[in-house]
């Protein structure tokens, strides 16, 4: 039986006639439509990403020896804000936005689970993010002198994390409980699978991060920082594990799912050994769970056997995934489109980060050092709680994840905007993003290798400028992707499946889908339901 008698145009969508739609701002603010929510998540995340990489650039420049910041605390606050923004305001929301839009379509659901909760998560996140940014910029944040602003920053930080948790629960529930008939869990598209895996890891890691935050807040607010938990210099180091190995790799799990979907989609053939690829993504998620590896509480963490094991093992599942991609590419021989190139570069950067993770725990290399020494100061002095190597590794993973998300935006762009998205900007982002990732990360690796204190002032200056250039290139990448999506709005309307090789349900409905997403969906009989239909014809 053919997979679909679907492609829901607005007039035939079952829910459309029953729904009283409110347009304009009121409609947007009160919407529980996953497509509206997804677009807002994505737009805001890209804007916050611009801000975050600007802060990364400013921080690196400010650490050049002959440059000056208003104070060491100001440098620290801006630096930590940049790093927190990368995680909570850019990468996670970008993936959540993409998943809010795409996952219900992939699993054949008419809506996201708990649409009102999904809406509440979005607006809470946006409001809490604004408060967090405002409090940091007004003089709050980690190590700030105004204690009330520190409290406000911590509360806003907690609200941001809670809203991300709520949004993640909505997405995971959609994958588990709202799949269409016949779509067993092993038939779920790769991106939806990766969001389920990522969501599970994020739930666990962010839950522990909330515990850290609670301790910091209770000590700081109620006990006047009477214990080490709430003291200014100890606040950020307690949370730095979130952007250190192995936990930082959890940010990039959805990038693997996105690239997997693109590889098979452009190859127009079924993924050979699909189960291995699913297992690879699942294992990557399992190994990247790092809430237990908190350097703030475990001394000599790099010598801990579990930490060493996880640091080395994190690369192994990537080989499974990469092998799966190669098998699909060899079978399908797809043309090199922007999303594919972006996804593959994202995967290669992740492999590089996994290599860096393994090198970090090799004792003879002596890559880990005192986190707060002045010697490391030139580039990382503003980042107490992390040594140079970890700052570089986090940068590499964040940009790799961002490129994966950009690949998703370019791939599902026609579904999101309803118009054909040009391939040129995406191909350009491969260069700017890839080079940007290297320029951001490599200077920190150089400092890590050269044992910090041996780096001369002029070398540090050069390395700082290199990091700045990397941040600028990533900024350009964000702008290019945003430009491509905006420019597409004036282009021709997109067909249901503009790539011509869609295998999963999102390509069976209109671009963008009407209210209710689908007409009548037939029983799904494989992981590639649209190929089933094409083969029967």
């Amino acid at each position, binding site marked *: 039986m053919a997979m679909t008698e679907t492609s829901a145009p607005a007039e035939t969508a079952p829910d459309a006639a029953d729904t009283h739609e409110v347009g304009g701002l009121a409609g947007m603010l009160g919407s529980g439509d996953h497509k509206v929510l997804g677009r807002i998540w994505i737009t805001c995340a890209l804007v916050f990403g611009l801000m975050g990489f600007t802060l990364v650039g400013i921080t690196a420049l400010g650490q050049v020896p002959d440059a000056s910041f208003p104070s060491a605390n100001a440098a620290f606050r801006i630096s930590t804000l940049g790093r927190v923004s990368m995680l909570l305001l850019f990468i996670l929301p970008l993936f959540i936005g993409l998943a809010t839009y795409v996952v219900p379509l992939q699993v054949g659901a008419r809506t996201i*689970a*708990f649409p009102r909760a999904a809406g509440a998560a979005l607006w809470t996140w946006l409001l809490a993010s604004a408060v967090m940014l405002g409090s940091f910029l007004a003089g709050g944040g980690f190590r700030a002198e105004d204690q009330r602003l520190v409290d406000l920053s911590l509360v806003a930080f907690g609200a941001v994390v809670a809203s991300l*948790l709520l949004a*993640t*629960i*909505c997405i*995971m*529930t959609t994958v*588990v*409980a*709202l*799949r269409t*008939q*016949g779509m067993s869990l092993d038939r779920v598209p790769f991106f939806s699978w990766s969001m389920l895996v990522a*969501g*599970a890891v994020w*739930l*666990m*890691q*962010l*839950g*522990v*991060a*909330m*515990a*850290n935050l*609670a*301790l910091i807040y*209770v*000590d700081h607010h*109620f*006990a*006047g920082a*009477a*214990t*080490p*938990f709430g003291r200014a210099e100890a606040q950020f180091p307690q949370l730095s594990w979130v952007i250190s190995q192995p936990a930082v790799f959890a940010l990039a799990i959805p990038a693997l799912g996105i690239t997997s979907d693109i590889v098979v989609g452009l190859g127009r053939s079924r993924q050979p050994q699909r189960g291995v690829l699913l297992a690879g993504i699942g294992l990557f998620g399992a190994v990247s769970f790092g*809430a*237990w590896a908190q350097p703030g*509480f*475990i001394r000599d963490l790099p010598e801990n056997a579990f930490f060493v094991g996880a640091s080395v093992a994190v690369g192994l599942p990537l080989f499974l995934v990469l092998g799966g991609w190669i098998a699909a590419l060899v079978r399908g021989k797809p043309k090199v489109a922007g999303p594919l190139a972006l996804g593959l570069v994202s995967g290669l950067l992740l492999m590089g980060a996994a290599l860096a993770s393994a090198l970090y725990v090799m004792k003879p290399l002596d890559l880990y050092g005192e986190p707060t020494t002045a010697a490391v100061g030139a580039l990382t002095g503003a980042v107490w709680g992390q040594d140079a190597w970890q700052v570089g590794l986090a940068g590499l993973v964040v940009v790799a994840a961002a490129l994966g998300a950009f690949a998703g935006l370019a791939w599902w762009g026609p579904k999101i905007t309803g118009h054909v998205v040009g391939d040129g900007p995406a191909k350009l982002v491969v260069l700017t993003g890839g080079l940007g990732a290297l320029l951001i990360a490599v200077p920190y690796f150089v400092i890590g290798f050269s044992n910090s204190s041996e780096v001369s002032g002029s070398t540090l200056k050069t390395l700082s400028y290199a990091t700045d250039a990397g941040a600028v290139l990533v900024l350009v990448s964000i702008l290019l992707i945003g430009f491509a999506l905006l420019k597409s709005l004036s282009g021709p309307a997109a067909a249901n499946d503009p790539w011509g090789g869609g295998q999963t349900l999102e390509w069976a409905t209109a671009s963008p889908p009407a209210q209710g997403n689908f007409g009548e969906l037939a029983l799904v009989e494989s992981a590639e339901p649209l190929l089933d239909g094409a083969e029967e014809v």
Partner: protein
Amino acid sequence: MYDETLNLAEVPAAPVARPRVLIVATAFAAVAALMYFAGLIGIYLTQRAAEIAQGRVWLPESVDIPLTQANMLFGTLLLSVILIHWASQAARNDDRPHLYLALGLTLLMGFAFINQSFYLLSLTEMDLAAGRFELLVYTIAISHMIMLMAAMLYLVVVAFRALGGQETSVHHDGVKSAALLWDAMVLVYGLIWISIYVMK
């Protein structure tokens, strides 16, 4: 009446049984809450081990943590687990009187727990700002009470839904998900009981 025109071969297949969204979402939320407490208790145990390894005393001499009240608290919660599952069973059987009774008694156990908890904390005479032990115990205990209150609030919502006739033998996800959250809350207290009140 039997419809002679009905051809059984044309009857559509029954829909695939899917886990209900409310129960699935509650399970995920419970996992996040469990990890929150795992983080706090993990830090408590790490700090405790570090102090003891250095030959220092972890439990301050000025602090007395009685076990009797903590045992009573745990017993109260264990009893409440039976009650919430009684409610779930009653909902499944469309047994309204027993459903309301079980929900009410579970809520009563929740109130009793809060009352006893404050009494226990007052017995210890701990000063929040006195040190890491006190800070951790207060943070963990108050966090657990907040989780209990959230579970009770959820139970109240479910009770209203039941009064409105929305919890039936066919569809009683509300009671089942409330029971799931309650179980998670009791499990958390079990961990707290062992790590703080028994091991100290």
